Each structure stands twice: as structure tokens, then as C-alpha cells.
């Protein structure tokens, strides 16, 4: 269905002049994998990550944060001063990736300037049509809304 976001493979856009990667925990392995597929590591690269690096690399500096909230504060600080030419990349759970995507879009980045990849692990936000609460749940077809108690069947329609 076309309403599901087509998050595919992280694509480095080398037409950009700066590259900012936000990555959730172990998903940094995905970043390493994608980089290994390139001929060379892009210049002007900046990486923000939640949690501790699983495999640290000497050639890459990674700024680490103890929460998504703190990472987002730093992201806002960077985007507020960033210049045209920046490309934004989000890698992690669906929830993480779309949260940061919204943040990046609010600074005027267009879809053309953003690339995302979701790791299959992790959780989704499910919107309860009955009470408008956003529930954070693991992949599932049916669950009960934690706010109003309505039993929800999960439909595959994605909201921004």
C-alpha cells in the first residue's frame, strides 16, 4: 500500500556539502555497512548517536547522547545554524526515524535532502482513532490502547 512510508536503504547523497547522521544505538552498524559500500567516506560528516557505540571506529567521530531528547536538542542547535547544502540521515527504529524526520523538516529541509533507514528491531507509534493517543508498541496486529482501553486493529496507514 502506498500509504506506508517507503523507508528503504540509507542513500548517501554526495551532491550535499555536509552530511549529518542521527542514529539510534546499535543501528550505527547500518551506517557502517552503508559507508563501506561507498568508494570513500563523505567529507564534512557529523554523527549523533544515542547509547554507546557497539563498534567504535577511529576514523569517525561520534557524539553520543543518553536520550533521544538530548540528541534532539543538539540536532536543533545544529540545524538552526546549518547552511544550504546539508543532507540529513536518520537511522534507527521507525519511531526514532520519523520523530527526527519531523524535526528536520521543521527547519525547512525537503524530502530531497533527507534519507532514512529503519532497523527492523524496535517500536512503532500507533495512533488510536478513538482517543487520539499515540501508543508506542512493538510490531503487532492487534493491541489495546493504553489511554482509553479500546481494542485496536492496526491498519497500515502512515501519518506524518
Amino acid at each position: 500500500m502506498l500509504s506506508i512510508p517507503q523507508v528503504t536503504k540509507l542513500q548517501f547523497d554526495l551532491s550535499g556539502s555536509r552530511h549529518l547522521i542521527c542514529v539510534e544505538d546499535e543501528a550505527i552498524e547500518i551506517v557502517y555497512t552503508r559507508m563501506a559500500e561507498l568508494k570513500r567516506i563523505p567529507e564534512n560528516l557529523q554523527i549523533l548517536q544515542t547509547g554507546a557505540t557497539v563498534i567504535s571506529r577511529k576514523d569517525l567521530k561520534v557524539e553520543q547522547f543518553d536520550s533521544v531528547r538530548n540528541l534532539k536538542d543538539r540536532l536543533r542547535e545544529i540545524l538552526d545554524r546549518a547552511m544550504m547544502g546539508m543532507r540529513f540521515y536518520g537511522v534507527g527504529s521507525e519511531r526514532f526515524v520519523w520523530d527526527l524526520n519531523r524535526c528536520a523538516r521543521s527547519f525547512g529541509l525537503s524530502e530531497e535532502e533527507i534519507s532514512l533507514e529503519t532497523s527492523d528491531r524496535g517500536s512503532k507509534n500507533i495512533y488510536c482513532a478513538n482517543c487520539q493517543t499515540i501508543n508506542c508498541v512493538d510490531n503487532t496486529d492487534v493491541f489495546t490502547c493504553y489511554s482509553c482501553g479500546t481494542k485496536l486493529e492496526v491498519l497500515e496507514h502512515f501519518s506524518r
Partner: protein
Amino acid sequence: MNEQVVRVVEIEKLTPRIKRFRLVSVNGKLASFSPGSHLAVEIPLAKRQYNSYSLCSSPYQTNFYDLAVLLSENSRGGSEYLHQITTGTELKLGLPKNSFALNSLARKYILIAGGIGITPLISMLFVITRHQIPFELHYAAKSPTECAFYRFLQQYGDRVKFYFSERGNRLNPKQILQEQPLGTHVYLCVPQSLREDCRGAASALGYPKSAVHRELFGAVKTNKFKPFTAVLARSEQRIDVPQDKTLLEALEAAGIKANYSCRAGGCGACEVKVIEGEINHLDSYYSPAEKAEQNRILTCISRAKSKQLVIDL
């Protein structure tokens, strides 16, 4: 196309070759328009024709339109006609159309004008300043006397920069476009060579394509084109398209009802299927892949490479 009838109530000579016409409605209300819009003006010469001009008044102004017209040397007579009319003259206009609209989410606008290309950008200024969004206007002209709206633009202070070729001031696209904040949108209404320079600089700095907008009309000179014949598949009618006319104009002259909107190869409204013949795509509407398919043409701008083009009309 007699969608609006207007009367000229004021004519101002902005430069030796550019006149501004203020138009009010004769038969009711003027249609509102968005910044960057153009409209067709009927030129009532022996051979009736339509010229497109950008609106350069405020979109919030409901009582009048302003158009600025450059007296063009290799014109079809339209600008000469407009330059000799007096106040009180009635004109027939189409409804406003826009193929150069402002992106409503931009965090900053950079407007770049060359000569008469200033006109659509003037209407944008009214909107940008009302919404208090940061902007810069860079305006290249020959000299202050050849620079339309020179006095009007003084109110914007150092947000407007002039480049007068007579004084050797040159507009440097890279310098303008570098170090602009995220969410900047660039609007170009400049001659083709400068447009290519601006697009090249934007691309080198990493601007995405969707952040660079350009107005197209007036971009294509028709004098270097070859004539061809359009064959209408349904009626088997043969229509000669001379070198100085577009396929759309030739169809209109032959009394064939043809769709169109921007008349500049930007909107796709005049698309016609091509059954046979090789197309010379001059539009900015189709993707390279679509152009390669060679099965559709925008009649307002594109032509034939082959001597003949069989179209589905």
C-alpha cells in the same frame, strides 16, 4: 479568452524601454492572483495574438493590476502595440496563471532578477514582507536609468542589491548562494546564461533541485528554429509551423481548439500525443526518461526534429 476586460488608467515610463500599465476592471471585479503569476493580454492587431506578462502589483490589491512591458526588438508586435496605447484604452485579459509560485514553507527567499525579469519578483515582495519572511533581492540591470522599479525598491534598504553592468558590477551567483540557511528557496528570473550560472552554483553548493525555481517565459528565442509540418491524425489536416511560431500558435491560427496554460513549457496543460516523428523537447515539464519516450509533446514550446510530426488531434 475574453475572460477579463480592463481599462488602462495610468501609464508610467519606468525606463526608456519599459512602461508600467495600471489596469482596472471594466466589467466587474479583477480575479485575484498569487505572487509570481502571469496572464495573457490580447493584442488586437490584424493577426490577433496573445502575449503573456507577469503581474507586478500586490496580490492583496483588489482594485487594479500593474503590468510592466519591455519594448522588445524582435517581438511579434505585441510590445510595440502596448507601448503606443494611451490611458483609456480597453484590453482583454485571460485569468491569472502561475508556474512560478512561492514555496509557502521557505525560511528565506533569494530572488534574482535580470532586467525585465524583475516583474514577477515585485509581486512576491508584497507577500514575503507581509509574512515577514527574510529575503534578499539581487537585481542585475544595465544602469540605474535602465532599472525598472529602482525607486520603488529603495524602501527595502540593504535587502535589495543592484548590479549595474555599465559600472562593471557583476552578480556573482556563488557569493550570493553560499552560506544561506536551511530552507532557503531561490527564485530566478534572469537571462538563460545567468540562469545556468545560478543553477550551477546552487548545485555545487548542494542546493536540492526543488529549492531552485525559475520563470520560463521569454526564455526561448524562436528565430533559430526550423519550420515543420504537423499532421493531425484524426482529420488528416496538415498544418505548417513556421520557424517563428510555436506549434500551439499554428494550431490556434488554423482555428483548432487546443489546450494551454503557461505557454512556456512548464505546466503540461497543452500536452498532445505524438504518433509519428521525432520530437525536439524544449520544455521543463518532462523528465529525461519521458522525453526519451518520444510519444508526447507540449505544443506551446516544443518542436519537431523531423520534417513532419503526426499528432493525436
